[in-house]
């Protein structure tokens, strides 16, 4: 039996059990997320198998430079998140707050760039629907490509928004001094989530932006 702690919920024996529960809970949740995104990845695989040329052609209308920058931004944010977790583990409150701030800021930069890309697609009539226009015989399958593009990056962006929100809440709580060397499991599980959303993008970027890049 460890010491009584204000953060210990009443259903648990001790902080160690609480920590185990939170961590396993997040891992199981990430499994559900993999299945959730998995449906979209399957749809992507089927559609690309049916229409390889149209996907390559449509992919050229995505901005590889912006996508690449965003990839770098996200990888950097994963680093700052990992550093935040480390800071929490060793009990450095100021460093924790600093890294959480950086992580949230990088998340916002990602969303901003994503927004610029979306706006560009609207201007060039590449959003599925009645206004969609695409030169050439592959217009319908190209529209399908953009359907998947918006569904997949949109769902990913939604996860980013939630992630930024979570990090901001953690930041406020860190500022109030809720976390300590003994109790920082929320930072750790939020870190797991953040890295997961990052990894999803690592798959999305080549699948959407880098099809047939040499032509």
């Amino acid at each position: 039996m460890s010491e009584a702690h204000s953060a210990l919920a009443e259903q648990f024996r001790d902080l160690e059990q609480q920590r185990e529960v939170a961590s396993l809970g997040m891992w199981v949740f990430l499994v559900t997320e993999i299945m959730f995104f998995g449906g979209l990845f399957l749809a992507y695989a089927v559609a690309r198998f049916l229409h390889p040329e149209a996907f390559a052609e449509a992919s050229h209308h995505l901005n590889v430079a912006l996508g690449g920058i965003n990839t770098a931004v996200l990888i950097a944010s994963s680093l700052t998140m990992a550093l935040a977790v480390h800071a929490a583990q060793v009990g450095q409150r100021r460093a924790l707050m600093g890294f959480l701030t950086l992580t949230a800021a990088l998340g916002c930069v990602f969303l901003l760039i994503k927004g610029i890309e979306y706006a560009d697609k609207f201007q060039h009539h590449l959003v599925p629907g009645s206004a969609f226009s695409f030169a050439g015989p592959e217009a319908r399958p190209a529209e399908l490509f953009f359907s998947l593009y918006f569904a997949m990056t949109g769902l990913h962006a939604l996860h980013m928004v939630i992630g930024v929100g979570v990090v901001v809440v953690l930041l406020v709580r860190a500022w109030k001094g809720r976390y300590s060397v003994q109790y920082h499991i929320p930072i750790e599980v939020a870190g797991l989530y953040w890295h997961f959303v990052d990894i999803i993008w690592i798959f999305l970027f080549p699948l959407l932006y880098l099809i047939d890049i040499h032509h």
Partner: protein
Amino acid sequence: MSTAPTAEVVRREENYLNVSYGIRSWLLTTDHKRIALLYLASVTVFFFLGGVFAVLIRLNLFTPTGDLVSAATYNKLFTMHGVVMIFFFLIPSIPAVLGNFLIPLMIGAKDLAFPRLNLASWYLFNMGGLIVLYSILSGGIDTGWTFYTPFSSVYSNTHVVSTIFGIFIAGFSSILTGLNFIVTIHTMRAPGMTWFRLPLFVWTHYATSLIFVLGTPVIAITLALVAAERLFHLGIFNPALGGDPLLFQHLFWFYSHPAVYIMVLPAMGVTTELITTFARKKLFGYSFVAAASLAIAVIGFLVWGHHMFVAGQSAYAAMIFSLLSYLVAIPSAVKVFNWTATLYKGSVSWATPMLYGLGFIGLFVMGGLTGLFLAALGVDVHVHDTYFVVAHFHYIMVGGAVMGYLGGLHYWWPKISGRLYPEALARFAAIVLFIGFNLTFFPQFILGYLGMPRRYHAYPPEFQVLNVLSTAGASILAIGYLLPMAYFIWSMRYGPAAGPNPWPATGLEWLTPSPPPPHNFDETPTVTWEPYDFPNRPDLKYPSPVVAVRQLGPTPQEE
């Protein structure tokens, strides 16, 4: 021989029901036992709503010309019957009510791992339910509960998006419940409660939770894509845009076939508890029954293609899916044989829960064997989309899952409410249900084999006799469902006090008072014994004094 506790004693002890009063103490509770009762209220409402649709369907089929409702209304009726019954009754019924109540008690924990998440699940479930209710009241939906594209995504002019949204939200309640159960079973077991000392009820819920966690997100994203197709013209399932409507069926059945096991696995868990308790014997082949639960959950993910034998998948895919579907029969049969072997030379008693348990085995065997007909490619082509399929899955879902649910409710009702229900009336209701069920659904096997297609609101006159039988059976079935509701409510006030272990049984849940105190156990129990060890527990004799005195007359010892 101890005396039965009086109602007076029950009222004085602090338990989860009397620890606080008022609507707030229920709506903001994080006690898994109270949340289970909230779910009980919710799923009962949806059960009766789905039942109303069933009654209207059966009434319409009373005559061959479909005189009661129009064809379009009939399409809406069977769709809403399916949506409400599957997503809002069958899937949550045993896990969210009995599982929620019992898992922490059975493993010796104070609560689930995430009590607030548990309450949030109930709110999500009701939000989803209210949205579906809104869709129903504002005109309904006619796609069938299967939402096949492109009809659902392009052509149907009914409330597809709002219904899908409701199911999507309720799906997250399933996911979070499954997550909660998995984490709880892994981390919250009492000292000495090893994996192979867990009650089989917990094992089946673990297997069910795996399906919740792995399957439900897939249906969620699939239905979200259908909604996106209607709202934003995404074309993933739309052949006009180069999309693939078969992809929808693959994704849909990837969840919806395992969902059948979400419904039936918990019922198997209940049945296992009932059979061993009322046979007074150690469960035959504990580890095989546990492993069979996991095997059903895993193989269940590999058989979805048997719903698509005539949908245009490749012949090789169909053959493999057929073979894999046969494989599910093996763990299912393992369970049935183990139950039978447990009954063999047991001192079997005919208490109400046992009637449901035995009813479950019989009806599940019927449903399972006819499932093999459907898994066989050649036979399936003949009976695909006929009433044979309807009869088959009602044997599994109503005959299996609902029998298990009711059996479990009767068995644990003394624990939940602290009271005994009237035994004679309950046995009568169980028999009425069994007769009504078979009269309703057995004729449908014949109808289907003769070629009556499902989902038609009119039919050739030669099918009328069997349809009338089915409708008559449905009215008997309805009485069988109303009776338990009436006497359960009656027993909450007037039932005799049950005492902690009325049957008596061996699980940890029976060591704590009925109803249990707010934190389940006064001190965390330490488990040093094997599960279902009736032969080594001479102290546990059926019927227990309290049941014998209150319900069955004097026990043989007292005569």
